[in-house]
């Protein structure tokens, strides 16, 4: 278990990934990944660049089409060719490294557009929900601004509020703080921690080991398209068993260290 205390307020669903395979041409990027995220659980995905973390995350909501294996998210089998992908994605929030806010819409509209067009909520209800979620990420007064009038950290918090406004039961984060200035990383991680406390199911790709150690229920270390090691955060990060994990963590935790 993670070190933080949880008081669930979110409705949570889990995800089950089994024997997931994905290739780009001849390049097999995911070589049979199996992974379970239980409802309300926070799983951090770590690993070197190019190990397939983003690809795995993007397969979960079918932004990438897997070549094999199955993915179950909530009540949906994402890999079923008949599945209603748009319905499934309404339940799966995604937060991108580059924020991907809609620049032609205000902060409030960013948070209401999908509620209105996809969930067909009324304008007043959508605004109310958007305002609640902007409040939750500490940006209650920023609804009328445009994304380019915000700092990187603020933009990422809006992106989180936008995803939350759809009432997802599972949230995917792909290196949400990697594009941020160091001084704004903390504010985004703090929001993610409050989500974890509130019982959101989260699958997080991150290089923030301190965050993973404190917030994650489980940490999964990937390398070369396979899961090398997984377990409680304290064990995988604090006492890794596999040489590849040890090597990776040594480089991440002590960037100036070089093996010669």
């Amino acid at each position, binding site marked *: 278990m993670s070190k933080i205390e949880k008081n669930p307020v979110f409705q949570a669903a889990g995800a089950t990934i089994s024997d997931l395979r994905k290739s780009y041409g001849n390049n097999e990027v995911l070589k049979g990944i199996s992974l379970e995220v239980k409802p309300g659980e926070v799983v951090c995905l770590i690993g070197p660049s190019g190990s397939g973390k983003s690809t795995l995350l993007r397969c979960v*909501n079918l*932004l990438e089409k897997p070549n094999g294996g199955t993915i179950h998210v909530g009540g949906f089998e994402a890999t079923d060719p008949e599945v209603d992908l*748009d*319905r499934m*994605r*309404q339940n*799966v*929030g*995604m937060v*991108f490294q*580059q924020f*991907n*806010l*809609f*620049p*032609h819409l205000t902060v409030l509209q960013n948070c209401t*557009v*999908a509620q209105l*067009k*996809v*969930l067909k909520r009324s304008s007043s209800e959508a605004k109310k929900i958007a305002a609640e979620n902007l409040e939750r990420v500490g940006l209650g007064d920023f609804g009328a601004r*445009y994304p*380019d*009038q915000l700092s990187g950290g603020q933009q990422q918090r809006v*992106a989180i509020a*936008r*995803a939350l406004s*759809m009432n997802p039961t599972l949230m995917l984060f792909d290196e949400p703080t990697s594009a941020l200035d160091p001084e704004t990383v903390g504010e985004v991680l703090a929001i993610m921690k409050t989500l974890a406390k509130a019982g959101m199911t989260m699958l997080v790709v991150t290089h923030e080991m301190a965050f993973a150690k404190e917030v994650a229920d489980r940490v999964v270390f990937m390398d070369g398209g396979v899961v090398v090691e997984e377990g409680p955060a304290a064990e995988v990060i604090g006492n890794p068993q596999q040489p590849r994990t040890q090597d990776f963590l040594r480089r991440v935790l002590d960037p100036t260290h070089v093996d010669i």
Partner: protein
Amino acid sequence: MAMTTSQRARISKIVQAIIFVAVITTLVIVADWPKIRTSFFAFEKLGPMFPDLLLVGLKNTIFYTVISFAFGLSLGLVLALMKMASFAPYRWLATGFIEFFRGVPAILVLLAFGFGVPAAFPEAKWPFAVTVMLSLGLVAAAYIAETLRAGLQAVPRGQTEAARSLGMPAWRAMVTIVIPQAFKIVLPPLTNEMILLTKDSSLAFILGMTAAQYEMTKFGREGITSLGAGITPLIVAGALYLVITIPLSLITRRFENSSARTKR
């Protein structure tokens, strides 16, 4: 003696000014002013051109331009989407079309539609305006397609991905997220295309027109032969083109400025 750069620049500026004044003076002295007035600015003789130059000519110029643009824009959007399609034959078809109609003179397309089609299909009778719309529209579509494709592709992929991951179907992501952003990008080149079309509408004369079909340039040409006012009719027609095209440019510039402001 060595000169500094600023000294040299000053001397070059003075020389340019002297040449400019000399050229103007020569032209003013050499020119036959009374002749210039009667052949360029004989406005008093233009009475018979009005009000038809405006009610028929200006109206037809705008009419031919608008219908050709509307057709070109619709077809251009289809071609742009075809060019981005994953089905390769669509892409080939669109590329072939675009390369062809960008490469041949508009006047040739007009002639083909105006004389070739009636010859080949004697039964097919369609109004003059449709011939103009189809021929000028096909050429415009080729340019517009490339403009639209570039605009749509200039919107980052992450925008579509964010929209899809919020549960939007592909068409909804296109309509609500991608197209509004692409619109800002393509508005200036589309206005440019509209300006070109405004001028190209004058090519319609090549098909032979009845008086009710005259556009502004045709009125100008008629005026030259019938009014004895030199090329004054053309000067007036030319000014009327500017009345259409300059506001178009101004609108675009304003739009560019305002979108530059929201871009921080």
